[in-house]
């Protein structure tokens, strides 16, 4: 019974990943633009030791981390409010209201945020510019805000579920022992929510790290690792593109290991 789906995941998915990784070790025939069957380490060397590419990877990781941090910072108070302060009949409505935009279309939202951050020019201004008289324009801020906006529901849902599982008695006990709101949050709530946050962050981090379209739409000249993979693949230099994909693959494997240590997989 399990063999059908496992076969699909192993053969189609893992098989493709394995082929992709091995393809990074083949030499490119400069003349035909196709990969040959000669083994080489040159692609890996270029992808992993070139300073410019390393900077790009670090930048992508920082952008993904900032988007994730933004999601956490918003999800914590919102989930706390819905779980503990909202009236019981309003809870469901609030959660649905905050997760439904996930269905509104990735590109539509990305371009809607472009219309918001548009710094103004020949065609007129963007929303921020004409309503608030200024916009950070296209760049890091716009990219991070857009990524956080796109993936926020993925963080909210596990954090909200985590809050729902917190027994009231723990919070009351903390209060009875003299802890204020902030102290209770820091010493009781936050540690218990770490698995939920870790679970949500797998999605926000991974989806942001591999994103190359958002950064094209609102990032101005900013580039992320996905842009390099896409450009190299279409160059066409398949082996080098495969070598570049080893960056997100290895970063995500490390990330998943750390998050599973934090208990993320019990909350997925």
């Amino acid at each position, binding site marked *: *019974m*399990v063999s059908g*789906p*496992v076969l*699909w*995941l192993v053969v*189609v*998915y*893992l098989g*493709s*990943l394995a*082929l*992709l990784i091995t*393809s990074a070790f083949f030499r490119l025939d400069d003349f035909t633009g196709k990969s040959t069957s000669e083994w080489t380490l040159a692609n890996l060397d270029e992808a992993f030791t070139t300073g410019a590419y390393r900077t790009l990877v670090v930048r992508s990781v920082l952008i993904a981390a900032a988007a994730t941090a933004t999601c956490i910072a*918003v999800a914590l*108070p*919102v989930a*706390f*409010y819905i779980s503990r302060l909202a009236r019981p009949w309003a809870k*469901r409505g*609030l*959660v*649905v*209201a905050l*997760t*439904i*935009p*996930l*269905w*509104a*279309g990735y590109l*539509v*939202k990305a*371009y*809607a*945020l*472009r*219309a*918001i951050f548009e710094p103004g020019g020949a065609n*007129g201004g963007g*929303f921020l510019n004409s309503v608030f008289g200024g916009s950070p324009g296209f760049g890091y801020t716009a990219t991070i805000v857009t990524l956080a906006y796109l993936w926020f529901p993925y963080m909210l849902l596990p954090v909200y579920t985590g809050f729902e599982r917190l027994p*009231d008695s723990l919070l*009351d006990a903390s209060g009875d022992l003299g802890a204020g709101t902030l102290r*209770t949050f820091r010493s009781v709530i936050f540690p218990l929510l770490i698995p939920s946050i870790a679970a949500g962050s797998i999605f926000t981090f*991974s*989806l942001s790290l*591999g994103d*190359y*379209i958002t950064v094209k739409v609102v990032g101005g000249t900013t580039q992320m690792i*996905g842009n390099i*993979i896409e450009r190299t*693949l279409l160059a066409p230099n*398949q082996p080098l*593109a*495969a070598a570049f*994909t080893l960056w997100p*693959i290895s970063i*995500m494997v490390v990330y998943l290991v750390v998050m599973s240590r934090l208990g993320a*997989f019990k909350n*997925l």
Partner: protein
Amino acid sequence: MQLSRTSRWSLRTITYLTIGLVYLPLAIVLVLSFNDSNALVWPPRGFTTHWWSTLADVESAREALATSARIGLVAMLIAVVLGSLLAFGLQRFEFFGKNAVSFLAVLPIALPGIVTGVALRNTFVRFGWDLGYLSVVVGHATFCIVVVYNNVVARLRRMSPNLREASADLGAQPWQTFRYVTWPLMRSAVAAGAILAFALSFDEVVVTTFTAGAGVSTLPQWILNNFSRPNVLPYVTVVATIVMIISLPIAWLAQRLSDGPRER
């Protein structure tokens, strides 16, 4: 937990502000679909229903919509069958390597789409298979399986094993237990997973971009290609608005279904 008036007030403000901010971009798209201009700028120039009334003439949009629906349905069917089987098997049976399999089952959504896309493209090209409908469906089904699996496995975990045991004690064969006990309790989770799988496939851009051949254009690709064309751009906002309006009740239904019976 006791909270000061200020904390309560600020938490409520943050929550409603967040809801407002989440809907602002969607509202802007809605408003701009009636804008008498072909640029995505604010404020709108003037009111027109031209884009809405002439949408039916935009053949490329209709074709892209049909393509997306077709791919979404096939990917959904594959995902429902394989994802439910996987969840049922992993929950019900113990076997060697079970942990590895459940880790494998989250990998396609834990790794960025660009990795999946580039990997599948490479495989198709390597074996000389054409990139087209089939490759897109394979790509979509791969992450849709995971979505259905997650939905169904969560439901099965909440289901008490007592029910199954009671059924067996009353003399039911395993298939009867499945038919009359397990299935009625898990079917709404399967339905919710199916809706979610279709929605994800319908909205997917990255895997599609890398696995679609020249002849296949899904709705997101149509959107991507037409945002830079001023004469089609307003139709993109109309299509986006229509998709949003259709998705709302479906999303609500999926939420209800994934909550499961008796727990509302």
